[in-house]
């Protein structure tokens, strides 16, 4: 599924650059010649100007920092929580029997629908935003941790038993290292989700950050600034994913799934 992206990202080839430039130029010309029927569609140069202005004034930087900080905080909590829940589900038949179906029932709950509940409980605060992010991004970690634990070769566990390892030793020396790769793959999916959900929560819950900036620019009828926020959010997503990929590749050189885009 990702092969197309990997190949096209590897090198920004001239033809791709040319296509993008032609599309942008057509957009610019179309708007200047007033050929489009959208009265609020800004030309790319207007967007660049608005974006530059918002960066100079520090507004968009502060918003980005807020969004990233919330996304990372929620993601960190979700990763630890998800790994713990996943291990408990995989290794304790009792936990699995009594909590499996309940969790399956909660999983498809759309994260947006959770925002009003969080707002009722925590008000229009950062807590609301982080709670929603944790709720949304914990699932891929759980699913992957369970899959990783199920895939542990029985011989590893037999070895642990033969060596008379204690419970904590078995967890630290055998299970965690074996489950880590799959959990990390889940955590990477979760980070993408965390960013998206952070923006959603800012739009309808916590009035701060990129999501709120986007909505206010729309309501103030500032299309240039609004598209500027859009570009900033998209770029942030690309950068975050790239950073994560490099960090994980450095930290866990053995996990092949993490090297891919």
């Amino acid at each position, binding site marked *: *599924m*990702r*092969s*197309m*992206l990997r*190949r*096209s*990202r590897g090198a*920004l*080839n001239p*033809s*791709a650059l040319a*296509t*993008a430039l032609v*599309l942008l130029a057509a957009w610019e010309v179309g708007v200047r010649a007033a050929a489009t029927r*959208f009265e*609020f*569609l800004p030309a790319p140069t207007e967007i660049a100007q608005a974006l530059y202005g918002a960066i100079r004034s520090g507004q968009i930087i502060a918003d980005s920092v807020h969004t990233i900080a919330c996304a990372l905080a929620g993601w960190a909590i979700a990763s630890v929580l998800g790994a713990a829940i996943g291990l408990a589900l995989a290794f304790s038949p009792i936990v699995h*029997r*009594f*909590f*499996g*179906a*309940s969790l*399956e*029932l*909660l999983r*498809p*709950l*759309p994260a*947006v*629908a*959770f*925002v*009003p*509940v969080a*707002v*009722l*409980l925590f008000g229009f605060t950062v807590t609301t935003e982080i709670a929603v992010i944790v709720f949304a991004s914990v699932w891929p970690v759980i699913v992957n941790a369970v899959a990783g634990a199920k895939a542990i070769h029985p011989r590893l566990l037999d070895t642990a038993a033969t060596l008379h390892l204690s419970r904590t030793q078995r967890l630290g020396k055998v299970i965690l290292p074996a489950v880590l790769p799959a959990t990390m793959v889940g955590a990477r999916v979760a980070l993408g989700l965390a*960013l*998206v959900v952070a*923006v*959603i929560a800012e*739009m*309808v819950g916590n009035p701060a950050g*990129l*999501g709120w900036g*986007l*909505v206010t*620019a*729309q309501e103030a009828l500032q*299309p240039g600034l*609004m*598209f500027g*926020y*859009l570009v900033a*959010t*998209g770029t942030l*997503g*690309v950068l975050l994913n790239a950073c994560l990929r490099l960090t994980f590749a450095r930290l866990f050189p053995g996990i092949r799934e993490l090297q891919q885009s």
Partner: protein
Amino acid sequence: MIATNAPAQAIAAGRGRRWAIHAAANTWSALQGLLPLIVLLLLWQVLGDPRSPYFPPPSTWAAALIDRTSAGDLAPAVLATFQSVAAALVLATGLGVGIGGLIGASPALERCLGPTLEFLRTLPPPTIVPVAALLIGVNQEMKLSVIVFAALWPVLLNTTSGVRSLHPTLLEVARSLQLGAIAQVTKIFLPALLPSILTGVRVAAPLAIIVSLLAEMLTLMPGLGALLLMAQRNFNAAEVFGLLAVVGSFGFIINAVLAAFESWALMPQGRS
């Protein structure tokens, strides 16, 4: 007649009994799995204060939902959300299969469009909602187009990779049978790509639901999202929890239906 039927009946009865035992075991294990949730809700019901502004017990949720239903709000909202999600999924599947098929078949097209599509894909889908609201205005087309934009990428990417992993023999078969273009698409490509396409649709469905709800929340267009947001603004906690349950079952049912459709469509004997 009777003699020949008796063993068959016995077998049928045996099978029936076995099936009943199996079903009972399944129900029991499902019930066990739901036990914590049921216990939690029961405790909430028993210990909760009906006047609590934050944690109203489940019976008040039901009452709030019944109020909404008798006010004539709930059913049209569910229907509006369902219609947008269903229509957008169909559109996104058509577009995604078309564009994805072309990109998968032509390396030149992929080289040109790849990075641009990649940037569009990484845009968080929710950010499109305010943009579309400003450009297109608050109407059905806007809602539909934002959901299509969100649901398009999984289908498109899966189709592209599906096309690329088609076995070369399939193409040779089409050529040696001298199939026409339409016959090639309907008899060779669509059946071969069906698994990838359906996987894409299943990934796209939850996204479509999320973006639909968000669009309704931000623009207050009729739908479950708008009801949920209004309930929150009125600090009607019971209604918020009730609607959350409705939204949850909405997502659950759509996912289950798609999963069932997928397993039916991919069953070898299901397609003649």
